[in-house]
């Protein structure tokens, strides 16, 4: 085991997969000479050359579609979209083409590609650069949407995504790139796509998150443990397919749930989780399911406004405590 950053985990996995399989190549804006807007691809152009690390024009629809077409002929492109916000420029290719080609033609050709892209607010990037719109893609059968929260998961899930024969939207997070965690040195862990993880066992309440909010959930659980509150943390890891069983099993055990999400509340990922819980654990619930999400505004630039709009350790703690109070356990 080595302790490395989320960024390093991604880069080392890309490198290893490119060495392993000649069909794997990288394509995106500023990934070569500039070495990536967030330096995930640092050094890779030098190591692999222009054929396999391909800088593109600013043309998301064009290069995402180009990657899809290359995947149809059996290559395994890994696309970098600078941020998930820019995926909107390519959404026709992602939703109408990548997600449809396998089914629409009766399973004759698959689209083995990965679209890596970070989401996440909190960087004072303003309304158009701070969105969490993974929901748009999680809604679509034919796509797989992964959202790792730790360096270890980043590595094993990216490896799984590259080796998978379907189009995978691989959600990273600007706020996690520098986070550190353990990653096995032998480097061949391949995650199973579609599995959530109980990353901390507990008995009082289930706290569900993904990406940055899975990390926040861990922090919340640690803090509440000091007050003798036992929080079980579920890291969704995969937004499509969604591991309903793990969610429901946990809530059946704890009897209450809080969902922490970085996207907007109304129609958000949390709404689907809450619906899943009431469908699978209705008789086990001792309190209404609570959601903590981003304020429903275009995210502002000014720091106090931005901070207020985003879910935080404190806002999740408040929701957990209020839910436990509703259960009848006085936790202050």
């Amino acid at each position, binding site marked *: 085991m080595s302790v490395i950053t989320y960024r390093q985990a991604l880069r080392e996995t890309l490198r290893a997969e490119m060495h392993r399989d000649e069909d794997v190549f990288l394509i995106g804006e500023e990934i070569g000479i500039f070495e990536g807007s967030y330096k995930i691809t640092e050094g890779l152009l030098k190591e692999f050359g222009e054929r396999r690390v391909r800088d593109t024009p600013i043309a998301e629809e064009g290069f995402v579609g180009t990657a899809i077409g290359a995947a149809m002929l059996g290559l395994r492109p890994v696309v970098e979209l600078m941020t998930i916000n820019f995926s909107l420029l390519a959404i026709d290719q992602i939703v109408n083409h990548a997600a449809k080609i396998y089914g629409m033609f009766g399973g004759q050709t698959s689209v083995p590609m990965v679209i890596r892209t970070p989401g996440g607010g909190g960087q004072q990037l303003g309304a158009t650069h701070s969105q969490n719109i993974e929901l748009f893609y999680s809604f679509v059968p034919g796509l797989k949407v992964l959202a790792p929260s730790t360096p270890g998961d980043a590595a094993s899930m990216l490896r799984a995504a590259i080796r998978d024969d379907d189009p995978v939207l691989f959600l990273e997070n600007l706020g996690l790139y520098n986070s550190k965690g353990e990653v096995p040195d032998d480097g061949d862990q391949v995650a199973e796509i579609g*599995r959530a993880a109980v990353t901390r066992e507990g008995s009082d309440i289930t706290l569900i998150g993904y990406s940055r909010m899975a990390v926040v959930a861990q922090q919340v659980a640690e803090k509440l443990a000091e007050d003798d509150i036992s929080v079980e943390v579920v890291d969704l890891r995969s937004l499509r397919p969604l591991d309903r069983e793990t969610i429901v099993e946990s809530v059946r055990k704890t009897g209450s749930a809080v969902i922490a999400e970085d996207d907007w509340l109304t129609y958000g990922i949390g709404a689907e989780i809450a619906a899943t819980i009431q*469908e699978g654990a209705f008789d086990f619930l001792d309190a209404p399911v609570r959601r903590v999400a981003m304020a429903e505004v275009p995210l502002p630039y000014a720091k106090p406004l931005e901070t207020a709009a985003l879910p935080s350790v404190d806002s999740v703690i408040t929701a957990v405590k209020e839910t436990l109070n509703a259960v009848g356990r006085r936790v202050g």
Partner: protein
Amino acid sequence: MADTAKPKGGGTAKSAGGRRRNRKNDTPNLADEQPKDLLDYYRQMLLVRRFEERTGQAYTQARIGGYCHLNLGEEATVVGLMSALNERDYLFTNYREHGYAIAKGISPRGVMAELYGRTTGVSKGWGGSMHMFDTEARLLGGYGIVGGQLPLATGAALAVSYRGGDEIVMCQMGDGTTNIGAWHESLNIASLWNLPVVYVVVNNFTGMGTTVEMSSAEPDLYKRGSAFRIEGQRVDGRDVLAVRDAATDLVERARSEQRPFLLEAFSHRMKGHSVVDPAKYRTQEQADEARAQENDPIALFEERLEKAGVLTEEAKKEITDSVREEVADAADFAENSPHPDVSTLFDYTYATPVANESRRMPADPVFAE
């Protein structure tokens, strides 16, 4: 490109055609052709015509669902383009692709069965009229979203180039496609990266009801590659030999020079945008012209072949009969093929099966106790 006259919809095909005769890609002399090839083109064009007529009929009888766009009037373009490709070359098209599928080598049975939504269809009944696909024939899809196929075709050409292959990719589209973002992004990428792809604009002067003049600031569509340094040519799409020669020229140059090219072929859409479109936006004069003998690629070719003594009465009858039989056989085959079983509903969502994929039917509970 000294000629600055603009082709227009309706009454202007004549002038565009007239201008074409002054250009170097004049129609080839029949004396230089193999009669066998000429008869083969004639037969294929007639097959597409009869197939599409039968399709229109089956559609109005509700044997075929969805949208249904026919190649009527474009048969010379279809057959000419396909004769320029070898069997290893790839083809991407838009949603007006039944004729292309057949001319690329797919059995009319498979195409008709797809229209009928049967398991024996080229896309197993999952695609329908707009989404024909066949790995073996290397038709990599008809696409229903205008412009959607352009980045894909560009990517297929990238894959060929990546692997050092000698195939080329042909990407067919309609005239309206030259205004969508994917056009600009794809042509730019293809030119920057020297990809072996030939973009073909089938100009029937009208995108649904909107004319080329109304939608394109540069209505000389073959010039629109110049912003990307992509050489463009225009050809009379009513002339199968001219189309074949122009397409072959660009296809072989794309192959040898590893560069993208652009070809514009103009011809008339004999009927509405789709089977259900009565094309009321056309003036009587425009409608007459779209169906005029002089714009009908099959009538034109037939007359030439007859005059040259290539198409005898006997050969014509033999071809007409065999085409009629082939189309009737395709329709019978489609009619008698099985519908997909509902149990196969979830078979093609993912190529790699995954844990926790939802396979719920409407009204099924999420968690069955």
